[in-house]
């Protein structure tokens, strides 16, 4: 078992750093390129949500906790922002509260599709916590 914690300000310039950091932490589990790309995209979606919706332009802290154990990566991404009033509604594909802002409404759908497990806990005025995990398939033995 390994664990890491990362705390950074809700600035969009930190997105690249955050997703690459989680990907680098997962590398010892030997994920495939496509699995690693899935993780980076899911992390990017969660962090974007914290910045765009949770803090909505205001500056605040985003925390990422990652654990690895036996081929599985657990990622928890949380903010102390506005929170989500109706989580069921927010999870629906194409749902967005910012229709004029060129938002696709696909963030949660992508997290759910790209990761093995996904859950979100949120309280209005308190913040949002997304928990996701991905189990990496064992690499195919070299077929020589």
């Amino acid at each position, binding site marked *: 078992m390994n664990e890491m914690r990362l705390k950074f300000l809700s600035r*969009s*310039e930190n*997105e*690249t750093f955050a*997703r690459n950091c989680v990907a680098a932490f997962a590398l010892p589990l030997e994920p495939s390129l*496509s699995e690693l*790309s*899935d993780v*980076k*995209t899911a992390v*990017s*979606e969660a962090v*974007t949500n914290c*910045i*765009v919706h949770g803090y909505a332009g205001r500056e605040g802290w985003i925390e990422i906790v990652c654990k690895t154990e036996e081929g599985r990566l657990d990622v928890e991404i949380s903010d102390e922002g506005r929170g989500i009033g109706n989580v069921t509604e927010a999870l629906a594909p194409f749902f967005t509260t910012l229709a004029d*802002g*060129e*938002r*696709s*409404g*696909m*963030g949660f*759908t*992508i997290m759910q*599709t790209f990761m093995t497990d996904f859950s979100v806990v949120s309280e209005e005025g308190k913040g949002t916590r997304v928990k996701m995990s991905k189990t990496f398939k064992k690499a195919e033995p070299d077929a020589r």
Partner: protein
Amino acid sequence: MKLQSNRRGNDLYLYLSGELDEHSVAEVRGQADRAIEENAGLSRAVFNLAGVKFMDSTGIGFLIGRYKKLKSFGMDMYLENPDASADKILALSGVYTLMPKL
């Protein structure tokens, strides 16, 4: 994120390169819109994604925004050369029905 554009015949080609996320989309949105406005009489625009190394749903939102702008000028939009991970998210979000892959 970088954007280069050129005109070939009746087509406007837009080449995107770099990482397409919340941070970088702001850099190229204005540039893409200017290229579209300057070529408003053409019949279609092709976004070449060969240089896009990362894309999340913010990138999808960006593409849909450009699609709407092109439609307002009566232009069709197409995508070409997404890598495997970009292709996965484009297919999942259903945008190929609006902007087919060449």
